[in-house]
């Protein structure tokens, strides 16, 4: 019989893995990994502020991530500094500020390690509901606007001329990514959460011929990594967040290696025919 807390963690992990396929694909295509890190790093400040205001920490986390996503969206058109510089400043500024504020309020008992590296015991029934809600909303919006989203990712000006509301859809995407990071953090922690978005789609890339395939394969790899990682963590007593991430990274390495081998074999076959064509000329 599977423990209830483990089942909650597993279901929440699978939900996050499913949304992380398509959303992670956009993170990779639009080079938003640093944006994700910025959201994750500033989460601690969100939690501390929520506790100070006697709000629910998960709610605070979600609100703060959404607020920050809006701020970053508004800053996107700033051109004096490269985006990664702005993101890095905001991210580490918020993390440092979170730690400073935390040190002032010594009555606040906060399990820092749980926030940094995740704690599957912390996944509550309500967290699970939030994941399900996120999954439902993200699936509905992505299904409806998928073509427009891919189009604006490739060439925003062309998409705008063709009638796509580029800025609005970008904000929606940024908010979804913020939500995924805020909820995924419960599972694997601030430090590791962006890997849930990036690693599975990176593993999927060599085998995908269309954007849809990359998103779908990403979801599958993420779900498998969650399943295997949590099983491993329960079986041999290793921390569950890192177990999931390590499994995902191994699948990425295996995928890249396998692709390279197949490609070499493929080009080995192609070489003689190329030579023949060259000789005929």
């Amino acid at each position, binding site marked *: 019989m599977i423990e209830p807390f483990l089942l909650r963690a597993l279901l929440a992990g699978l939900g996050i893995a499913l949304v992380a396929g398509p959303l992670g694909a956009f993170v*990779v*295509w639009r080079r938003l990994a640093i944006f994700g890190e910025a959201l994750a790093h500033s989460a601690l400040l969100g939690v501390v502020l929520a506790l100070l205001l006697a709000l629910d920490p998960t709610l605070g986390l979600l609100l703060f991530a959404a607020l920050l996503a809006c701020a970053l969206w508004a800053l996107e058109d700033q051109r004096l500094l490269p985006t990664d510089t702005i993101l890095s400043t905001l991210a580490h500024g918020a993390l440092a500020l979170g730690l400073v504020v935390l040190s002032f309020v010594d009555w606040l008992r906060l399990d820092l390690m749980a926030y940094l590296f995740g704690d599957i015991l912390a996944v509550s029934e309500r967290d699970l509901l939030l994941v399900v809600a996120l999954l439902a909303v993200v699936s509905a919006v992505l299904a409806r606007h998928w*073509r427009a989203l*891919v*189009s604006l*990712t*490739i*060439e925003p*000006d*062309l*998409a*705008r*001329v*063709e009638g796509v509301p580029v800025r609005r859809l970008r904000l929606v995407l940024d908010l979804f990514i913020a939500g995924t990071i805020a909820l995924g953090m419960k599972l694997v922690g601030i430090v590791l959460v962006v890997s849930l978005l990036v690693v599975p789609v990176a593993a999927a*890339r060599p085998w*995908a*011929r*269309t*954007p849809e*395939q*990359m998103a779908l394969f990403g979801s599958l790899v993420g779900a498998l990594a969650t399943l295997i990682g949590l099983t491993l963590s329960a079986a041999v007593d290793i921390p569950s967040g890192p177990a999931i991430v390590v499994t995902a990274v191994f699948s990425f390495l295996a995928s890249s290696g396998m692709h390279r081998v197949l490609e070499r074999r493929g080009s080995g076959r192609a070489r003689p025919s190329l030579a023949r064509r060259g000789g005929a000329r």
Partner: protein
Amino acid sequence: MQVQATGPSPTSAAAGLADPIVELSGVTVELDDRTILEDVDLVVGTGELVTVIGPNGAGKTTLVKTVLGLLAPTAGSAWIRPGVRIGYAPQHLPLDRSIPIDVAGFLALGGARPHSEFAAALAEVGLHGIERRQMAALSGGELRRVLLARALLRRPDLLVLDEPLSGVDVTGQLELYELIGDIRSRRGCAVLLVSHDLHLVMATTDRVVCLDRHVCCSGTPETVARDPRFLNLFGDRFGTLVALYHHHHVCRHDAAARGELGP
């Protein structure tokens, strides 16, 4: 600053032109305290082929973005006839290798259409059997043509082509110019074409607008090539090369008529 999207053409400056589809009047664009365009007037009539030429930094892409409504002018007005369908082929397509997408998938991003239309549009721009090729694997010339096909699939009233020849070799440039001329006469759509390449301006261009932040001069290719303001800006290269283009064009047809292969 105003971008009008409705109503009739705002000025009578276009009186010479029966039916304007795009009209910029007195457009000034300032970005970061720099004046990119100053008091630019530009009219494109229905079915007209207008080529904008100018050196690097003349504000050509800014002009295109103003026409497309991507950029609001600081002063003056940009008007486009309501309901006009625009087909736009941008100068660059920043194709990241991380996005797996084939030609058919890319064309579908412009709007949902039956697959048979994709093949027809690709054939129209001279491409065959490349629907399943990955976009990242295309050559520069193939990419220009795919962008053109995506623009054509929208059944445009106005084609806006920003540097359609960039990354294309000389033979390909001539072919593309012929193709654009053919498309214009076949579909009757207006074409606004932007180029920094003074060596080669389409013989079938109705009007050349010479841009260097402001409009230096405009008129038929022959008049512009003789205009002292143009010669002052670009030197005397252009006139001779227009002639060369005519020449080459005739040559190809002669060769084809005799059933010989060109060099």
